[in-house]
């Protein structure tokens, strides 16, 4: 019974991880920008929803505002931070440090505006009921799983069926060639940031409703996204989403075996193991060299 309960808990965590990881993977895959401020988009989206809720907006409007805020943040990052850097030198860690600086700034601004500490959206959706003896499930579990599922299918369809999605995949493979095809790599890169960041919003809203937010929450989300992207195989959205789900479940199920304080380390041990033994990830193509 405990196993089933932990599995269900893991699924909910996994759905959140899968969505953020898919967003990170989309951005990283298409633009090769290691967007460590992805967690910041998550935080912003969560707090915008929180404010909208607090201001008494209808929830659909709050969701839209949250998605819009995440997208705007992603686009602003691309245009004002990443693009100027890449115009000069575009080194991997230059981008890393710049994005890290931004995440520090945003975290503290949120702390000043929204108050430091814990904040949550109070909704009955996160309240569990006993569906089977000893098994407690909140409606939020089904909502988050469905959201993750629907968004993932939509994203897959977009990337395979819509030419703009195909163009994003093309950008990932050979950015220099994009212009020869008459397309704008800058425009596509903005698109990747917009969609990728938007994916963080639903996850952030679910988090706001369940575990609650604090201004530093983006940090952990970003780490998990990175781990899932690598475990899933760079360039594979399917892999990142699946790996995000897996990490969520592993973190939860690990509790049947190890003590609770080790649960998080399990995720990163999985990551480390994957890199040593299967660097290509679940779906990636081997390219260790």
């Amino acid at each position, binding site marked *: 019974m405990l196993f089933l309960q932990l599995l269900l*808990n893991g699924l909910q965590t996994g759905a959140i991880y899968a969505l953020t990881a898919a967003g990170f993977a989309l951005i990283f895959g298409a633009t090769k920008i290691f967007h460590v401020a992805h967690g910041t988009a998550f935080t912003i989206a969560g707090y915008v929803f929180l404010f909208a809720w607090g201001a008494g907006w209808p929830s659909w409007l709050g969701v839209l505002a949250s998605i819009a805020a995440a997208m705007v943040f992603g686009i602003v990052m691309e245009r004002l931070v990443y693009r100027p850097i890449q115009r000069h030198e575009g080194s991997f860690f230059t981008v890393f440090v710049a994005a890290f600086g931004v995440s520090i700034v945003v975290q503290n601004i949120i702390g000043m505006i929204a*108050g430091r500490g*814990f*904040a949550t959206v109070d909704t009955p959706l996160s309240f569990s009921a006993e569906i089977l003896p000893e098994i407690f499930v909140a409606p939020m579990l089904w909502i988050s799983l469905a959201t993750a599922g629907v968004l993932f299918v939509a994203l897959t369809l977009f990337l395979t069926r819509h030419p703009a999605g195909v163009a994003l995949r093309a950008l990932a493979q050979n950015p220099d060639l994009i212009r020869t095809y008459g397309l704008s790599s800058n425009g596509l890169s903005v698109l990747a940031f917009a969609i990728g960041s938007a994916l963080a919003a639903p996850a952030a809203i679910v988090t706001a409703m369940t575990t609650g937010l604090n201004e530093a929450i983006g940090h952990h989300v970003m780490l998990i996204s990175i781990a899932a992207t690598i475990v899933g195989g760079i360039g594979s959205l399917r892999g990142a989403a699946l790996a995000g789900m897996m990490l969520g479940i592993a973190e939860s199920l690990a509790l049947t075996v190890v*003590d609770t304080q080790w649960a998080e380390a399990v995720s990163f041990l999985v990551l480390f193991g994957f890199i040593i033994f299967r660097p290509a990830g679940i779906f990636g193509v081997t390219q260790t060299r």
Partner: protein
Amino acid sequence: MIGRRGALATGLALPFIRPAFAQTAEPYVMGSLFPMSGPNAEFGEAFTRGAQVAIAHINADNMLRRPVRLQSEDSQALPQPSVIGMNKLINIDRASWVLSSWTATAKAIAPIGDRAKTIMVNGGGVGPDLSGLSPYFWNVIALAHLEVQAIVPFLVNQRNVKRVALIYVDDPLGDGILGQLREQLPRHGASLVGSYSVPRAAQQFGSVVARVRQSRPDAIYIASFGAQQAQIVKGLRDNGVTQVICSFSGFGLDGIRTLPEAEGALFTTQKLDFESGDPITKRFATDYQARFGQAPVTYHANYYNAAYLFGVLGRQVEQAGGEVNGETMRAAMLATRKFNLVGGEGEFDELGNMLTQLQVNEIRGQRVIAVG
């Protein structure tokens, strides 16, 4: 929101509204080393407010010949920034009285303060390892082992609790509480049925809760900090745990008090009856309410006391004709021992730990009510 913005405005105005004699004398500098950014900044903000009210009172009453100024440094709750901040407070700002909090900060600055003979006062950290770090390191808060001793009989006798589960962060505080629960519960005929340590950064608690539920407790004791405490409470309630939640003084935060899921939670604090006739307590409660637009809680009171004590001891030293510094104030403290502070009389032991009476509080309708 509005309350906070108001606080911000007051804070901004603060440096300009010093008493008139500020121009004539170089102020005494009181330092503070709290986490002012990062995940624990909520505490730093609360601590600072308490101290701000105390300093305003000291200055308004002209308790000392020179005004007192608060110099705030951000410790980030990390050793290295704490050490840099402490060095600045001692060597640049010439602070002889530093308010601190947090295990890492306290332990990192204790040797520096010890060498410089600077008084360090803790009113937030309750880990048992904070006792006796240095003759100059004092605690104006009852350390956690005492808190456990206070709540266990209440739980067993008043709430008929037989089985307790503990969720704790694996640090000296958590370990201290774990040890105390193991010892105290059987003594009162109850038992510790499970203990679950969580990493400091953990944010998802659904799975931990599932294991807590398995142990079928009558009450769950939480030993964590800041935002994480609230997340654990919400995790427990969301996942169908309806039993009593209890904790130590760390629960005395707005984030918990206003959390709907925390309704009915029990926690211990120093005895503090704002409605009592005690003038010091009353003045503090009124002025705090006026200044920040909300009722104070224990943490505000603790750091009010921590800062106010400087005024009391400083006056003693000044009146005896001495120079106000760590050494003279420590001597004054050891000579006096008992002080009238917010919440009543507090008494220091040899090590500089203040013993106060403890009370058990319950959160009811977003208010903290003393219940035992």
